[in-house]
């Protein structure tokens, strides 16, 4: 027995060197591979949380309507019924979080209305369009139309 052990000593030594090498490999691997890597696929699963951590900028019309239900009800029956509040008023999540922190600026009809309603032959034929110069003779759209109930 003792003789056999002595004769295979070089093999034992080799095994120890290999084992040490494997251990170093595992330790390095543990240090450099992020936790959970490969849980869902070949990527760091923490990325999903990183991407989700971004704060919301548009509150969503449901949140607007929770306070401004009067305007929401008025608008609902009109042709602008399905246009979300923030489509015209801009991103207002900050206002929804704290109404005093950010006061919405009234949109300028000269820019706002024509973006959608200026005539363009690429627009769908059933979409209401005007050539604003001829239509309003330079007047602001708001003189005649209420954007929350646009039909005269």
């Amino acid at each position: 027995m003792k003789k056999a052990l002595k004769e295979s000593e070089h093999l034992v030594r080799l095994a120890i060197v290999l084992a040490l090498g494997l251990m170093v490999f595992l330790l390095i691997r543990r240090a450099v591979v992020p936790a959970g890597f490969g849980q869902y696929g070949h990527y760091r699963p923490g990325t999903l949380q990183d991407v989700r951590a971004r704060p919301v900028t548009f509150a969503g019309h449901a949140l607007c309507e929770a306070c401004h239900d009067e305007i929401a009800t008025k608008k609902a029956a009109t042709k602008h019924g399905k246009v979300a509040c923030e489509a015209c008023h801009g991103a207002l999540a900050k206002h929804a979080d704290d109404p005093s922190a950010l006061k919405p600026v009234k949109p300028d009809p000269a820019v706002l209305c024509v973006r959608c309603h200026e005539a363009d032959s690429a627009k769908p034929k059933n979409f209401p369009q005007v050539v604003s110069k001829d239509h309003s003779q330079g007047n602001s759209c708001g003189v005649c139309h209420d954007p929350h109930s646009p039909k005269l």
Partner: protein
Amino acid sequence: MNMNRRELLEVGGKLLFLSGAAQVAVDNMLGAPTAMPDSYKMADHWWGMTVDISKCIGCGNCVRGCAAENGVPRGYFRTWVERYFVKDGDMEHPEVDSPDGAFSGFPTAQHPESKGFFVPKLCNHCVDSPCVQACPVGATFDSPDGVVLVDKSYCVGCRYCVQACPYGCRYIDPEKETVDKCTLCYHRITQGLTTACAEVCPTGARQLVDLKDPKDPVHEFLRVNTVQVLKPHMATRAKVFYKDLDGAVR
């Protein structure tokens, strides 16, 4: 305890090895699972989008909304709108423009002799994404709920994916020098909101859809309409479905 140097090295080496192996084993067992801490279950969703060409008016609200929501630098786009004019069925030579990605809408145009329409574009969140296959470092991936995302801490900015995307939906962030793209507003849709572009679309041309939700109107949309994806010959299994898309669109 008497020990010569050889014995010390042997015993010490064994102990060191065992402690290292034990630690690795314990780590693997505990596994540090990064589960989502809330009620959102990735396995229950399969996100995509529908775009109704017959409703798009080219106002550019989606482009501005996307930039505001995601902090997209000016001059770069995660979504943009193209205007097409096709004359006499000349499908190979449509007149296409997209000034500043339609960030400020379009200058008015009248070509009554041509067929005109708008095409909003964005990441197609392909099931077989060429960009994911091209990424050499595993920074770009398909999430379990069908969204193509980027790990910016892994991205080395090699631009392979920018070239691989057949739809031109990726750009290099000029500040961070890493790639960036549409996340399908992952931070919004995972908390029950719709995407910024769909939220501000005044005509409802763009709709976020969940293909795993049996109650989602997308199933009827896909059943009753003439639906097409962009570049179907690329076999990317794109998940942005266009209704009434003209053959001139590439």
